[in-house]
């Protein structure tokens, strides 16, 4: 019967769960979500591709080509750490489900 006090208190209290798909929870500062890539600032040095532990970033310097496959990404934030121009950072978006494969590729 030790949980009785909890139960009585909970009836009055606001529920601690949220109505997730309808109301999104805010994420804290520094959250590691979907990448934000600034094409203008990128110098195609390839450091992010080298640092990526799952090899999901592909860079071709001559063709000025850069792409990241989110479906393989583990969101470790290592690419953000090594980027010399800070053109790549991890944003706040965490809803990544999609029907199309193209949605997982950032260019």
């Amino acid at each position, binding site marked *: 019967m030790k*949980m009785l006090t909890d139960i009585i208190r909970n009836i009055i209290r606001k529920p601690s769960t949220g109505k997730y798909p309808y109301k999104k929870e805010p994420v804290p*500062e520094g959250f590691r979500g979907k990448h934000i890539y600034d094409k203008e600032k990128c110098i195609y040095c390839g450091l992010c591709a080298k640092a990526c532990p799952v090899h999901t970033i592909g860079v071709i310097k001559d063709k000025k080509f850069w792409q990241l496959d989110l479906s393989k990404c583990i969101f470790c934030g290592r690419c953000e750490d090594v980027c010399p121009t800070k053109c790549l950072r991890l944003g706040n978006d965490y809803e990544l489900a999609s029907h199309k494969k193209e949605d997982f590729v950032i260019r």
Partner: protein
Amino acid sequence: MSKEDSYSIPLGPQHPALIEPEYLKVHLDGETIIDVDINIGFMHRGIEKALQQRTYMHDRFLIEKICGICSSIHTLSYCGAVEKLAVIEIPERAKYIRMIIAELERLHSHLLWVGIAGYEIGFDTVFQLAWRDREIVMNMLEKMSGNRVSYSMNTIGGVRRDISKDMAEELRKAMDKIDARLHHYIDVFVNDSTITRRTRGTGILTGKDARRYCAVGPTARGSGISCDIRKDNPYLKYSTIDFNQITHKTLDIESRAVVRLKELLESTKIIRQCLHMMPEGSLSVKVPEIIPEGEVIYHAEAPRGEIFYYVRSDGTDKPYRVKIRTPTLANILSLKPMLKGQQLADMPVIVASIDPCFSCTDRVTLLDTKTGKTKNVDETYLKSLKRR
């Protein structure tokens, strides 16, 4: 009744009481368990082999994925081992931050266990409320590291993110909240009559058996054996911190629950001291990509017990061998003496009482019964089985 002519039912590989697939064949006489066969190996992922094919820095992120719950203690041990090999001393502040994250991880892991234990004995309210309170810790971890599960805080040579003054203040407040709840849960687990009916006197593991089956962590401490790497062989800065090692001598499930809950009170104490003692300074030092030749062991106290890392380098940028022994592998055999003679109804909670984490435990050796040849299962073999 002997084991052969008894009625046997499977617990697993797919069973709601075990979240991960593992196969326990239970031999029953009515509802009494007479014996149990423990078969592991359903979750083997070939990680140790995969580690040999990647560089030290890339390994660090794979190591994090070994266990979802103790992701920080794995990287802590691995990074510690590699730093030992490279003979590098990490900054003082980084040591304290590593300890804070490790203790927060213990908090959320044990609170999760409290919920699971409640769920296994059919007490959903304990489950829901313990997990609600666990959210306090999870939110703190998310704020500090940017992710709820894979914190990625430890890196070779230090830590990746700092704990700011505001964050430290918030953490102290969170610890006060957690402390109040912990005292309540200790009261519930010791005094609630329906819980004690299920946990008192069930799943007895005597100190002698615990030693014999090499139990570690809270499982052993619940049998009255003192074994805590933080005390026995202090790593990081644990030698400078004032905390108690908790042991409890009633040997049953309640004992293990009390050990875990009281341990958390010590954890919040450690976190407060760390926040107080943390010096200013840099967060990490640079580590060369090539690690000098040598071999090293590193062990640490994970939430479930002792975690053991052996790393051997052959002077390249990839490790020659990484051997991991997780606490569940040490604990899982102690299920045998715990389960013998118990009721089937108590089986899920007894299995849960060692806080099993099977995905880190599993290892597989294939044995051809005709030729007697053995074959190790590695990453390439597993990938060849993959469906395209």
